[in-house]
């Protein structure tokens, strides 16, 4: 399988008012691979992730410089439709956030936004998405029940099903397992392993073992003297964890700080 760059940041910096949260990060995200972003708390991992589908637009006073290239086009280009960006780049959050509606409607919410109305098509898509999120067998008999009645792990998989129902190309995950118990975490990790055959996945995690288990590439971010996050090292996950090139990476992965 040839390696294709699906998404790429070029000198990406993010500011909140006068505070710089991310400083000039340039890195690729390869198609059908899992890219993990690790680093100590406050180094801007989540901010970086949120810049990849313009979720930071929602934060008043935030500003972005540099480029985020998705299939050759900058998502921050003037006149670029943020809705299109978000349809192509989906997101799963740290805390499961199912909407207050039925399981079916949760999954069908996105497709309906994009004009999918036919019952038969929606049925098919809901089933496919729930299967894709490894949740179908558990909920197929109670699709009309509230999504909020599920367990934490199931809720998170429902959110994954909801995200993949609009058939994005890239899926961003912000510590998707940090609010879950070990069993549910394992299921999410397995799921990520199967999902990468369909999607490009970028995951933020503060759990280094998790990054080592599930990702193909790993980026290590660390804040500089001005407390802005910088990219210290990016390489294949195995290489980064066994032969780190930078002293600071080595210190971090061996648990000497952070």
């Amino acid at each position, binding site marked *: 399988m040839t390696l294709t760059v699906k998404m790429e940041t070029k000198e990406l910096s993010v500011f909140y008012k006068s505070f710089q949260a991310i400083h000039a990060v340039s890195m690729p995200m390869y198609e059908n691979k899992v890219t993990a972003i690790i680093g100590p708390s406050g180094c801007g991992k989540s901010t970086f992730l949120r810049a990849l589908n313009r979720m930071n637009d929602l934060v008043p006073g935030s500003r972005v410089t540099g480029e985020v290239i998705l299939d050759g086009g900058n998502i921050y280009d003037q006149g670029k439709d943020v*809705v*299109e960006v978000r349809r192509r780049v989906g997101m799963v959050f740290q805390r499961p956030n199912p909407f207050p509606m039925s399981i079916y409607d949760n999954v069908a919410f996105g*497709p309906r936004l*994009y004009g999918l109305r036919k019952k038969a*098509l929606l049925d098919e898509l809901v089933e*496919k998405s729930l299967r894709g999120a490894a949740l179908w067998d558990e909920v197929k008999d109670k699709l009309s029940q509230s999504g909020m009645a599920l367990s934490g792990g199931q809720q998170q998989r429902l959110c994954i099903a909801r995200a*993949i129902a609009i*058939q994005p190309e890239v899926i961003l995950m912000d510590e998707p397992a940090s609010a879950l118990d070990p069993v549910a975490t394992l299921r999410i990790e397995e799921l990520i392993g199967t999902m990468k055959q*369909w999607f490009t996945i970028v995951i933020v995690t503060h759990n280094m073992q998790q990054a080592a288990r599930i990702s193909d590439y790993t980026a290590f971010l660390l804040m500089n003297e001005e407390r802005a996050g910088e990219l210290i090292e990016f390489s294949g996950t195995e290489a980064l964890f066994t032969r780190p090139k930078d002293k600071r990476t080595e210190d971090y992965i061996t648990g000497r700080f952070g």
Partner: protein
Amino acid sequence: MQKDIFAQVDLPRVYRRRQLVNSVMLGLTGLFLVLAIIPLIWITVYVIIKGGHYINLDFFIHLPRPMGTSGGGVLQAIEGSFVMVIIASVIAIPPALLAAFYLVTAPNTPLATAVRFSTDLLAGIPSIVIGLFIYAIVVVTQKHYSALAGGIALSTIMLPVIIRSAEEMLKLVPRELREGALALGSPEWKAALRVMLPAAAEGILTGIMLSIARATGETAPLLFTALGNDNYEIGNMIRQGVRHHQSVLAILGQILDQPADALPLTLWKYAQQPYPERVQQAWAVALVLLLFVLTLNILARFWLSHRRRQLGE
């Protein structure tokens, strides 16, 4: 996952439609925003034009002159408003805060539900009915109108406003903060007083200021309680008291016991007078009242937004 289902949807068309709807709605929102602030600007500008030229220093430091003559001021109304708002605050704030703490600490008890319900009802009672009620239980019993009766009427207006706003502000305090204090073995009251109150202080203060602004602008509750009094002057009462060697308490009693004037009351009376000077003064009183209430409101909102920012909302 096949990627064919969206092939049935014309995505560019969906995007175009959404952008169109988006700009139309954004335009409408902006239009109605402007419409919504027009009344405020209109009222303010109009009152400034009508009353602005009559405001001078005399207006603030003199009692009214007899009808039909020009000059004079509304010192009695300013002092009366001041005294009655202080009375109302002293009566309303402590129980309102205690009630709010109760509502937050025991939110689902039957008593809390009852308190919340009756507070909402109290907030909805027409203020003139409150005035009449205080007339019946205070004025009739005392057999005369007084600043105290007016203050009690205003406190009834302030009570529900403070309770509900303080409850909202206390609810914003993270639960972990209260639990952190309780986990150290702190008694409930100390957790409330030393941990939750400081955390919510600015917000609560904001609610209090808004309720004061509301009370200052009320006319109806004062009609049968404070009545009005063209000669209400604290300085004069103190001088009289000192001359007759009265105690501080006796002087204070005088101040509370006299019928009193208030800015909205004066405005209401003056606006009905046939003398053009009085009507002009009514506009000037309107301006003073408006500026006072606006200033309180702006300060309160400013603090509130500051507080929200601190909580990272």
